[in-house]
């Protein structure tokens, strides 16, 4: 881990961290906005109260166009009086205005989106911390290979909703390339499970797991991204 230039990956790692942090910080501010907006609404909440938060979600999408594809509020179990669960999710493709994404929340359906048990929802809800989860195939959600950035939305009524932003793995690939700023072969971005998020090498494919003992899986350099990101940027020994 000590050979090579020990600083060469530090700046790229910082750039990736900065980009992700800027989204998490904005999600945090938007979460506070959501709490303030919904505070005056009489309890229990109803679906009809949710259009009030739409401008904040749309703004969030606008600020992160080209990176974030969708932003939404996933409501805590039992938070609404007229629906057991609800996802107020908005999505924008290719610079188009954001549109509402309807998720199937009927447990009897094949495309049931059981978000309460999913890591991107459960983790920020239980830890109270911003989290980055993925990549995962978001079946019945985006239906893409996605990462989700999410923060808890802690209301005074005791419920904790989750505010999330979807980023396609494709967007992380671009971020990796841009943050390296020069040709840097064999640089791999790994998540907390040693799963490849994105890489500049055709030897390591996004979505695959690194197995120890695999040839080439010894790194000349490795940098933890730190903060709320459980990711590492590593460079393979040539």
């Amino acid at each position, binding site marked *: 881990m000590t050979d090579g230039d020990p600083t060469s990956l530090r700046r790229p790692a910082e750039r990736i961290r900065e980009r992700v942090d800027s989204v998490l910080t904005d999600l945090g501010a938007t979460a506070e906005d959501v709490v303030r907006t919904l505070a005056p609404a009489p309890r229990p909440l109803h679906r009809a109260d949710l259009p009030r938060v739409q401008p904040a979600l749309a703004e969030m999408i606008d600020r992160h166009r080209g990176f974030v594809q969708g932003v939404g509020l996933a409501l805590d179990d039992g938070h609404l009086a007229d629906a057991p669960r609800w996802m107020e999710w908005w999505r924008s493709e290719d610079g188009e205005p954001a549109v509402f994404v309807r998720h199937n929340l009927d447990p009897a359906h094949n495309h049931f989106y059981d978000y309460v048990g999913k890591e991107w929802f459960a983790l920020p809800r239980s830890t109270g911390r911003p989290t980055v989860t993925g*990549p995962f195939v978001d079946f019945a959600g985006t239906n893409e*290979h996605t990462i989700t950035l999410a923060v808890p939305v802690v209301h005074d009524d005791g419920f904790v909703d989750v505010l999330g932003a979807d980023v*396609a*793995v*494709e967007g992380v*690939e671009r971020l990796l*390339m*841009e943050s*390296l*700023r*020069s*040709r840097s*072969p064999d640089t791999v971005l790994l998540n907390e499970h040693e799963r490849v998020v*994105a*890489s*500049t*090498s*055709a*030897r390591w*494919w*996004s*979505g*695959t797991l690194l197995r120890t003992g695999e040839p080439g899986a010894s790194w000349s350099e490795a940098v933890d991204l730190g903060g709320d990101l459980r990711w590492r940027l590593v460079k393979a020994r040539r």
Partner: protein
Amino acid sequence: MSSFAAYLRLDATEGPGLPQNVARQLETAVAVGLLSHGDRLPPESELAAELGISTGTLRQALERLRQRGVIETRRGRGGGSFVRSATQPPPEAVLNRLRERSADSLRDLGDACAAVIGGAARLAAQRAAGDDVEHLRSLAEHFRRAETADERRRADSRFHIEIGVIAHSARLTQSIVHLHDELASLFWMVGGEADHHPVTESAHAALISAIDGADADTARDVVMRNVEGRVQYLLDLHLDLAVRDEP
């Protein structure tokens, strides 16, 4: 049934999107060589019946294809709808497409090809009988004689489609038509096909001998490794193009 119609993947629920869907499927049939230059399409009523759609829907689909220059219609005796020579995009356009798409989507396409064609090869090795292997040999021979990138692409697709046919699986065959076309349209059209030719020839030969020997596991492995090699090649090229493009 005409030989190509069985391979088309139609969700034949009449609706506004159906003519486009039919047109797209027919265009894929041309792209992978199930229909080639000069072929005459069956009469409209016959083709519509084979595809399980109304003649009105088929006419709309054919009109789209005429506008796109895929077919031409000649009147009078000996007339009908004929497939025009397919115009392949120039290599620069294909390289551009390869640069634009994500490494993640290439990996995903490769995984689907490896799993579907590999699985079909496994079944083919267990089910081949009669002159199945002979057919495969002649399709491999056809590939060997191909001289242009486009001929290689079509012959290679036709070879892989036959794996689904030998497996006796209509669904796998349909899936191979579409998945293999997408991969082959990149792999054979980005240049370097002269280098790919011998590798592909030996992969074809290894698969034929595995199917001939009813060796299901080897048949699957040969196909999966070959697909992986192609994805590796395309990913390398994609990364080169994408990085070169950075400021």
